[in-house]
């Protein structure tokens, strides 16, 4: 019985593995199960989802052609665009009456994507989230302050179901109301915080103003996700909140949070690959790339019932690797996200990820990562990049010369790191929008 407490493995001084049968299985057994699930899922979608039948027919693939994991390459990809076109219920693989819960993506960039869960899907979600929270050291007796938004967004309820399955005490505080967050953290002895990484820093800032010392709180770990962040930002969060900060990854199209997460090694995110089969492809050619090579991450939901997806292109850039992780888990890992195929900026022909600029800013010690990148075409019709950086007290000076020097230093570092010239503009604190949810780091004004 996976998920039962008596089956959990406790290693000396390590966090528990919630479901060793799934997370620490031998590779042969794992791949056998994955193949069985894949064959079953492909037959299922071909029979029950006209959208997939049509796609497979157009590609000349029959369900019988899929016999092994390698055969997955024969199947056509699914894009976010297609998922939107099927709004709201075009991808259902079960009768509508079997759906017990619905979530959607925020839809900020268009029609939202729908994730419709059966009772079984909710059970899978709780299971993978229990694994995620256990990976961060949570268990029965822990107090999980869940500051992800409750509602259509998957973050809130995903953590909630996982925490409940784990037997921890979950505080469903949802996002926002910073003062109350701090009060609850203090009064209820929160041990695990779940929210976006930028919100955790926002909380740290607010705590500072309120005179709250994180060293005196019981907080020990954060499960942070729903937006990209860097290794430098992790160091800052761990330092300011006095916790271990773990990266967690998930997306509405697949299940929500619970797709993959970090263990205490903080070296790559373990993918729950018995449920979500990962591939890395060349974003241009669509060719499957071997382990260790960077490319676009693609997922197939092997077990999902309500709205299964086949070879969904996430647009996230990373690579996969399978190492001997000291935590004892054997499942494949993905490196933390290296960028997005869609937020990658091409500046005068150079590929630039906002995270690279963030790293430069963090390296120049004086600057906190409150920045915004504005891309535009000037009078010369060439790409111009401007980086707004908030002036912090730590490097503010009464002399213009000193501030100009900081500006030049940032500009030089960006030039040497990325090979592009950027205009650095120093701005007043709190002028760049702080988000409770996703940070808007890039404004692209180019009309191409």
């Amino acid at each position, binding site marked *: 019985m996976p998920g039962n407490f008596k089956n959990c493995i406790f290693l000396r001084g390590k966090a528990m593995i919630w479901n060793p049968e799934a997370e620490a299985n031998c590779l042969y057994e794992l791949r056998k199960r994955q193949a069985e699930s894949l064959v079953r899922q492909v037959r299922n979608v071909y029979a029950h989802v006209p959208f997939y039948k049509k796609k497979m027919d157009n590609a000349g693939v029959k369900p019988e052609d899929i016999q092994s994991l390698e055969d997955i390459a024969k199947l056509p990809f699914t894009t976010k665009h297609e998922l939107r076109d099927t709004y709201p219920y075009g991808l259902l693989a079960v009768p509508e009456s079997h759906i017990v819960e619905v979530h959607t993506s925020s839809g900020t960039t268009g029609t939202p994507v729908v994730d419709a869960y059966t009772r079984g899907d909710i059970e899978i979600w709780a299971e993978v989230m229990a694994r995620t929270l256990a990976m961060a050291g949570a268990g029965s007796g822990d107090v999980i302050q869940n500051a992800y938004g409750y509602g259509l967004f998957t973050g809130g309820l995903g953590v909630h179901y996982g925490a409940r399955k784990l037997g921890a005490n979950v505080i469903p505080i949802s996002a926002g109301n910073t003062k109350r967050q701090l009060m609850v953290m203090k009064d209820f002895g929160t041990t695990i915080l779940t929210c976006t990484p930028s919100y955790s820093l926002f909380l740290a800032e607010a705590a500072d103003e309120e005179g709250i010392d994180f060293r005196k709180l019981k907080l020990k770990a954060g499960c942070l996700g729903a937006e990209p962040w860097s290794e430098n930002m992790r160091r800052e969060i761990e330092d300011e909140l006095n916790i271990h900060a773990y990266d967690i990854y998930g997306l509405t199209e697949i299940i929500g949070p619970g797709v993959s997460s970090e263990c205490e090694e903080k070296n790559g995110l373990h993918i729950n690959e018995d449920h979500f089969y990962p591939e890395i492809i060349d974003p241009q050619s669509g060719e499957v790339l071997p382990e260790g090579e960077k490319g676009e991450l693609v997922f197939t939901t092997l077990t999902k019932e309500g709205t299964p997806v086949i070879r969904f292109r996430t647009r996230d850039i990373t690579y996969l690797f399978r190492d001997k992780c000291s935590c004892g888990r054997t499942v494949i890992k993905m490196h933390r996200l290296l960028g997005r195929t869609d937020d990658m900026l091409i500046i005068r022909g150079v590929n630039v990820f906002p995270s690279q600029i963030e790293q430069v800013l963090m390296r120049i010690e004086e600057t906190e990562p409150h920045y915004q990148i504005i891309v535009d075409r000037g009078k010369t019709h060439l790409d111009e990049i401007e980086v707004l950086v908030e*002036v*912090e*007290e730590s490097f*503010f*000076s*009464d*002399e*213009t010369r000193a*501030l*100009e020097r900081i500006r030049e230093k940032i500009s030089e570092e960006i030039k040497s790191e990325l090979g592009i010239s950027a205009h650095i*503009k*120093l*701005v*007043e*604190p*709190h*002028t760049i929008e702080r988000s409770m949810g996703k940070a808007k780091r890039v404004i692209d004004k180019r009309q191409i």
Partner: protein
Amino acid sequence: MSVKQISVFLENKSGRLAEVTKALGKGGINLRAITIADTADFGILRLIVNDPDGALKILEKEGFTAKETDVLAVEVEDKPGGLAKVMEIFEKNRVNIEYLYATLEKNRDNAVVIFKVEDIAHGQKIIEENNLPVVSGFNF
């Protein structure tokens, strides 16, 4: 013998200066000297006030980046050649000046000029040695 100057970071956009002065006015802060150093993108507002610590608190609460710096407030004879006399002493003794500006103050018949010098300890020593009159506070 030094006084505290408040510096505030300002972007070059309309209304910012009005907001700073409004906030300080509301808080009962009296301005004794004010000057702006500006570049194409930003400016640094420098202020001498009656209550520097109070002013800093107000500015921080309003979300401005601000800090205190020690500067010298030297009395200068209010007649032609008055400032030149002080400058000559500074020059002769290698007191390097980063910037200077005048205040609204008048002590007896003397004007009060604010000096930000590279090495404040050295500046203070030269002032003492030459018996230049200084102002050490604007507490009114």
